[in-house]
């Protein structure tokens, strides 16, 4: 029987299998940030355990950072202390840190791929569930808890049971206005938020093969929202040309050698998956969520499904929506385009292409938060800053921002926010805030109209 992409990468990283137990899995790259690492450093220090491979760790400041005046001292005392702690820990243990002000600083899952750190066939972890993003490169990448951060610090390994394999196939032709975000929201709305629990998911089919790396990252990013620890897409020419010449990519002959290896990674034709799903691209439409988990999504011109369970009723009550209701015409006062799901250059190109020459609606606060300093640079080089500013959008500095509202970028209580992020949990964007997830294209159009619209009627 053939091997899956996941099998090939996993098997080549098993240091040892514990008899009748889990595997000891070797981790190639460990990404860290300010929020989930301090207790891990403290744990090791208390127990007097050194870090085994600090050179394989890369740190950045993203979750907690302000998105204005990053050159000034941070006003919030706790945030400032947490970031200082990261700086001290990295200095003490010789870990590379892209701190505020560094030209490479950014959201960890935007920064690492754009620098060529993320490469096919690797194992990568980070104390953040959206580490699944890096699977877009054919990488085994997944989020871990702080105890596991400490384990990787100490041993560059984790003790894990090999997950089961799942493949989601999408074939056909996507309609105009249907973006990678719509594809993944559609998949999760059909499979539910726990369908992937215990699995690692591979996305296959021409829809993913034809996607850009940015699009693939958006898809893999949200694998965790259906419960899967990670998502993967087979590396191909799109992957190789994205990596080529990036800062930390292998160069010259070394790069050619790597490509030869990467080409051996895709799943064998006779590989068998524990679970498999098939979807038609033609059935997918621009999506929006109406509830308080990412599985509660629907076609933007559809109606809120008839729900039966108490939990669904609680979600609708929180959102202020009713079963059978259409959301078209619903006024929206906040729009957020950012987060590790949708803050790459392609996302802003998509938003700008709709916004160009238009104005945001007067009732809307429209926030653009680029994923990294590199993306900021691209936005400026491509003239997108002018497009957004002329339209009345506010462009901020890089960070996780209103996706999780740890900093000051919060949506006020009771307000609806159409957001390109990944989670519409109760209060996720601020206490009492109501999040509707969408693609950057839908978010841009709603910012212009000031209400939910049927985007399909606005694309000629």
């Amino acid at each position, binding site marked *: 029987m053939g091997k899956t992409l996941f099998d090939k990468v996993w098997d*080549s990283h098993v*240091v*040892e299998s*514990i008899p009748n*137990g*889990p595997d*000891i899995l*070797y981790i190639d790259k460990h990404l860290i940030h300010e*929020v*989930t690492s*301090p*207790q891990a450093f*403290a*744990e090791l220090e208390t127990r007097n*355990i050194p870090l*085994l491979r600090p050179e394989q760790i890369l740190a950045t400041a993203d979750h*907690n950072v302000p998105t204005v005046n990053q050159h000034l001292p941070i006003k919030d005392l*706790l945030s400032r202390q*947490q970031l200082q*702690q990261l700086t001290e820990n990295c200095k003490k243990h010789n870990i590379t840190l892209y701190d505020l002000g560094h030209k490479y600083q950014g959201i960890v899952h935007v920064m690492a791929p754009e620098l060529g750190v993320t490469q096919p066939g690797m194992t990568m972890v980070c*104390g*953040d*569930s959206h580490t699944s993003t890096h699977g877009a490169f054919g990488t085994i990448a997944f*989020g*871990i*808890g702080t*105890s*596991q951060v*400490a384990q990787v610090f*100490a*041993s*560059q*390994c*984790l*003790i894990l049971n090999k*997950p089961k394999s799942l493949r989601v196939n999408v074939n056909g032709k996507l309609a105009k206005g249907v973006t990678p975000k719509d594809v993944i929201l559609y998949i999760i709305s059909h499979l539910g*938020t*726990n369908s992937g*629990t*215990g699995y690692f998911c591979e996305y296959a089919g021409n829809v993913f093969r034809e996607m850009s790396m940015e699009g693939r990252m958006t898809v893999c990013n949200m694998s*965790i929202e259906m*419960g899967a*620890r990670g998502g993967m897409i087979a590396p191909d020419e799109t992957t190789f040309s994205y990596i080529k010449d990036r800062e930390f990519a292998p160069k010259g002959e070394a790069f050619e*050698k*790597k490509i030869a*290896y990467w080409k051996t990674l895709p799943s064998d034709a006779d590989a068998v998956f524990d679970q498999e799903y098939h979807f038609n691209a033609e059935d997918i439409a621009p999506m929006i969520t109406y509830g308080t*988990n990412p599985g509660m999504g629907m076609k933007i011109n559809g109606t809120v499904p008839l729900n039966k*369970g*108490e*939990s669904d009723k609680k979600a609708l009550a929180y959102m202020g929506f009713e079963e059978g209701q259409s959301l078209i015409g619903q006024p929206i006062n906040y729009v957020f385009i950012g987060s590790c799901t949708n803050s790459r250059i392609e996302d802003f190109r998509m938003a700008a292409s709709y916004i160009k020459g238009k104005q945001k609606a007067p009732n809307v606060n429209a926030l653009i938060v680029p994923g990294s300093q590199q993306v900021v640079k691209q936005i400026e080089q491509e003239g997108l800053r002018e497009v957004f500013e002329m339209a009345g959008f506010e462009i901020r500095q890089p960070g996780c921002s209103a996706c*999780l*509202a*740890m900093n000051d970028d919060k949506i006020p209580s009771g307000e609806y926010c159409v957001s390109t992020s990944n*989670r519409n*949990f*109760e*209060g*996720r964007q601020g*206490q*009492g805030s109501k999040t509707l997830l969408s693609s950057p294209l839908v978010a841009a159009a709603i910012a212009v109209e000031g209400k939910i619209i049927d985007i399909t009627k606005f694309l000629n």
Partner: protein
Amino acid sequence: MEKFVKLTSTAVPLKVENVDTDQIIPARFLKVTNKIGFGENLFRDWRYNPNNEPVASFVLNDDTYSGQILVVGDNFGCGSSREHAAWALTDYGFKVVVSSYFADIFKGNALNNGLLPLQVSPEFLQKLFNAIDENPNTTFTVDLESQTISIDGSGQQSEFDIDPFKKVCMLNGYDDIDFLISKKDAIETFEKQRQTEINF
């Protein structure tokens, strides 16, 4: 890590499905650099209104219910990987969380903190909810050695699965770090081999 062998306690019922880690501990409380005191803000936005007054109807504010076992709806702990969720539950005083389904990362985090994520069938979960509804003073016994949970005095019992490796860790209070450090030689041998094989 604290050992877990056996526990008899009353239980607190939270009949909500898909409880995500943002509800268990909202992100605004994650700015600290230690593991202390998260219990105060466990389920903060369900437990307190925006004026910081307790919400009387929320189960943690209801004197009827108490205990070291939390019984919750399906798919508990989905969302963010924040281990602060496990710290908040243990700091509050819970030692066991019972559900019909746990999200992967939460489950791992709980096990790494001596908090037992105990998965039962949806039917048995309903029996637990019913037993608490009928009498909130009902006690439940969780025995890790025999992998059973019982509704005391009713004769009703269910077995549960746990990874054999994590079971040994929980019973003895071991964590993974010590084990991994003991494997240092194997890890270094692996690194050398891997470098030659694919030129990493």
